[in-house]
């Protein structure tokens, strides 16, 4: 299940970055990927729709949100956690 969340996350990020999923590296930041604030809001929407979860994210101040957007790995970890929490 966890691997599948990861694959889907990479697909969502790759789509926003307009690159091939194989080019989405764990340590890549949004800036590295060329995803701006609007792209991030769109990605969060895609994540919520794909996994049927609520992502705690405020576009006003992304750094202050609970959703850790440090890099690809942190976002995948956060979404895995939210998906797992949603299963209970």
């Amino acid at each position: 299940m966890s691997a599948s969340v990861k694959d889907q996350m990479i697909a969502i990020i790759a789509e926003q970055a307009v690159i091939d999923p194989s080019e989405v590296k764990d340590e890549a930041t949004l800036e590295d990927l060329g995803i701006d604030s609007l792209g991030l809001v769109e990605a969060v929407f895609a994540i919520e729709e794909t996994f049927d979860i609520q992502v705690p994210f405020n576009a006003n101040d992304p750094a202050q949100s609970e959703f850790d957007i440090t890099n690809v790995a942190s976002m995948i970890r956060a979404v895995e956690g939210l998906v797992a929490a949603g299963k209970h």
Partner: protein
Amino acid sequence: MKRVVITGQGAISALGSSAAANMEGMREGRLGISSLEFQDVERLSIAIGGQIKGYDPEAHFSRQEITLYDKFTQFALLAAQEAMDHSGLELTEELSAQAGVVLGTAGGGLQTQDENYRSVYEAGKNRVHPFVVPRLMNNAAASHVSMTHNLQGPAFTVATACASSNHAMGQAYALVRSGMSKVMLTGGSESMLCFGGIKAWEGLRVMSKDGCRPFSVNRNGMVQGEGAAIFVFEEYEHACARGAAILAEVIGFAMTSDASDIVMPNKHGAKRAMTGALQDAGISGDAVGYINAHGTGTTANDRTECAAVREVFGAHADELMISSTKSMHGHLIGGTGAVELLACIMAVRDGIVPPTISYEGIDPDCDLDVVPNVSRETKVDVAISNAFAFGGLNAVLAIRAV
């Protein structure tokens, strides 16, 4: 070039149902933001707004009128009637041909759209009311104001998102100043507090769930409001000849486009708009005592706006006052600049500067005198009103005491 003065005002918002009540609310620093009440509100994550509570359309309009008036039109008509009454202006047939109306709105008849989409999509109905189109169109409010008051000159609607009202008032100012019109009713109205209206904003994730705290270190987004404000802009000689009471003089206007990003504000565009308004008014920045800020309460807007103010005004930025009355009435989107012009009139006419309420602590990026929480009595000669819209469209108006 003709001089342009304001000779009438009318308003309705969460702060009250007259211009005087709105000014009183601003002076008191009253919070107009409360829990939203409308159908399906429980499906929204944003549950607060500057909603006009206890509003009863039937107290103001007949059944036939209500079938034609979306709420944004109703608000505009109420404010326009008050402004006309206040101005004491009598429109003869000759003057009617030289009088018009320019209003701002972003959503137009959004309540009508919301109700009717609900009816055809959710309830599965195949028939809608015959007046859906004339009710929802963006120019409905301007058209009904022109019909009610027999304004036969220029009449149109300006839609530039959160700068709509300022752009509209700028157009009215230009029409009177150039001699094309003697009298213009102008301002704006908005009624976006419905399920679809808020749901769309929710998606953008810039709305606060707990309050509008412009410039405050702990601000976390904007809060919407609703209502209208309308003014009578009149050619100075004409106003003097009939012995009209003058509220203030409009002395400058400028508009710019960031030409950069569809949602992120841009310091340079804001700066050019403020500088342009000062140049148009033929005054230096030092003359400005009060700025009614765009001040949405989002991290990006308030920081960018303060940086732009510092660059435009230099050392004088530490002398002037800047407040965001959105903290009280919420963000009226296309109607916001109009309600906020009341704050500027109050500053130059009455020497009362409205506060930024819900202010809870200094943000080093917004270290200007934001008139925290309590209004101030002091003489103000010139006030400017900022509006910086999504789409990067900026409009700044300058007024002066007469």
